[in-house]
């Protein structure tokens, strides 16, 4: 892989992203991706096939859309998701100005107790990773056209913070 594709910030360094989202483009016959590494499914697919997806040799990643509702209906399922054996949770940013993902991240971290990897995907820019990190994201798939190295450096844009209930941006992956 060329350096150009090292656009995933994870654990404080750059990596190549190998994860792909299982979707319409894939074999119609499958309702879930094969038990191989680097697969991600949408939250709806997870809800539908929770049982099979939670018992994989290669844990699945879950993609949460920006308009996900964490309400009375989904409350229990989100709780279970955060306890399940999964690879990571990703939240989609259809455009960087759609700020719902920041609040969803806060809820996952502080209300549902998700302690695993939380990845920002979609319209993720040099200019947004700092706030994303403070809201609980610890990996970032930087969009095309944005220099991932600069995005990594942008995690230290500000050295101090006012809001006490949000974490500091630089966190090591556990």
């Amino acid at each position, binding site marked *: 892989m060329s350096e150009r594709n090292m656009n995933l910030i994870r654990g404080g360094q750059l990596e190549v992203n190998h994860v792909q989202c299982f979707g319409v483009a894939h074999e119609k016959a499958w309702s879930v991706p094969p038990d191989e590494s680097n697969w991600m499914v949408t939250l709806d697919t997870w809800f539908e096939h929770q049982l099979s997806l939670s018992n994989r040799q290669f844990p699945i990643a879950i993609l949460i859309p920006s308009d996900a509702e964490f309400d009375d209906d989904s409350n229990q399922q989100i709780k279970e998701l955060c306890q399940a054996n999964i690879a990571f949770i990703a939240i989609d940013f259809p455009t*960087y100005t759609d700020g719902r993902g920041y609040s969803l991240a806060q809820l996952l971290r502080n209300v549902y107790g998700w302690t695993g990897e939380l990845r920002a995907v979609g319209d993720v820019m040099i200019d947004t990773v700092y706030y994303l990190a403070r809201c609980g994201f610890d990996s970032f798939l930087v969009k095309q056209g944005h220099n991932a190295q600069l995005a990594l450096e942008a995690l230290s844009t500000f050295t101090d913070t006012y809001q006490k209930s949000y974490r500091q941006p630089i966190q090591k992956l556990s």
Partner: protein
Amino acid sequence: MYIYDEIDQKLVEQRVAQFRGQTQRFLNGQLTEDEFRVLRLQNGLYIQRHAPMLRVAIPYGMLTSKQLRTLAYVARRWDRGYAHLTTRQNIQFNWPRLEDVPEILAKLATVQMHAIQTSGNCIRNTTTDHFAGVAHDEIINPLIWCEIIRQWSMLHPEFAFLPRKFKIAVSGAEVDRAAIGVHDIGLQAIEQDGVFGFMCFVGGGLGRTPIIGKLINPFVAWHDLLTYLQATLRVYNLHGRRDNKYKARIKILVKDLTPEVFAQQVNDQWALIKGGADTVTEEFVSSIANKFSWPTYETVSENDNAVMAHHLTTNTAFARWFRTNVHHHKVSGYSAVTVSLKATGSPPGDMTADQMEVLAEMADSYGFGELRVSHEQNIILPDVKTEALYALWQELNVLNLATPNIGLITNIIACPGGDYCSLANAVSIPVATAIQERFDDLDYVHEIGELDLNLSGCMNSCGHHHVGHIGILGVDKAGEEWYQITIGGRQSGALHLDKKSSQDNDERSRCGASAAIGRVIGPSFAREQVPDVISRLIQTYLTLRESESERFIDVVDRVGIEPFKKDVYADPLLSKYSNLVRESNV
């Protein structure tokens, strides 16, 4: 004045560095127009009719003489020697070059100023009473609470990309002078069982759909303020509409859910964070209070009353100014003074670099080097010794800064309008000037009494026309400028002039619900008709009022808009043109 500590200073400097990098990337083609747009807006930078416009925050309206001198420097070096005070305690430069903006921001940072979050869909500059800290009727000092909110909201990681802009106003006094009823969140200090807290109004706002805020929580104790704000914002961030810009403000969410359901959702979110890390502690409040340099007032004897009485009886011009531009101070022997930036012929709220320097000088020589800017677009000298008022008036008068019109019809609140703003449908400044010229007889202006006249060049309502006792809105019809007139609007229950306010008024003014949206009197008018319409409205008022203490707004409240409407449209001169325009809803 709040004095930055090391962390405050570092944050504004790091923000300048961040924006410098973003501007560079944009100029190098590494950030697209779309990507850069929101980033520059969150640093106060619009692209306007003639040039970029830079909006600089004056947090809760508080300014030092040193800062004002720096604004003068910026106006001269990077602009055309003037700037414009907005209706939200910000100041705007109309002619900077994009390339220069990082440099301007760096200069401002040296005097603890910034343009962070003065635009964009984020939490904007928190505003308050322009007499904050010196008002005689304060329950709490709102400056401290505004600073606490400033810190909490600045560079807030969760709420930088809201559905739409978000404005918070705080009233710490018994009378609301911060127009809390027309803000996304309006906070009114109150005391309950010996503990103070805030009544929390949500979903007020002007613009296309003017709505008065609803009381969502009658008492949020002071230590819970930030977690309650966080819960409110979180509900909005998650559920506010993002599919339609015109339905994206929190007022629409509150309306759609109903205030009761909205309040319940906020409570549900609040329960998750209440008592958490952002709970305000007594220690924190003291640490913020201690970072202010508070004025050290002298004990002034009131012996010089005789001299003052002499000036007041012998000098009509001074007496007029004293009546409208001098305000009661919490400390005996001191007064707050409004410097009117509403002299006839100068754009409302505009200030030249020379004026800035002169006012900085006066703030030093007549006070403690502090000033306030009001949402009515004037400058306040907050701590003038009462015995020095005559000398101050003489100085101001020579400079044409002593127009005795605060609270009166010629103190027109206006946006920059079509002369500057690319959103505007119509011009504002020439209309304001025409009205001021019409009402050039000061005796008559004083006889009319308290009257808020607000003027906006378009639906975005930057001139707050909905809450003017008389409101004027510029509308576009087939490429022509027309003006729609509303009456009966009110920004709050505050009385500017009449200290004899009734108990009833006091009660109303204690809550944001006392704000009111004006009602349209009928079809729009051509620009040249506007002064005639205003004259007609005033004549009707003067005929109808029962006494001099019954204000224009009181008469509209008592008799409704019909008599005014009838008189205006019965006037053959006015009806002749307006009949050409049949769209009654515009």
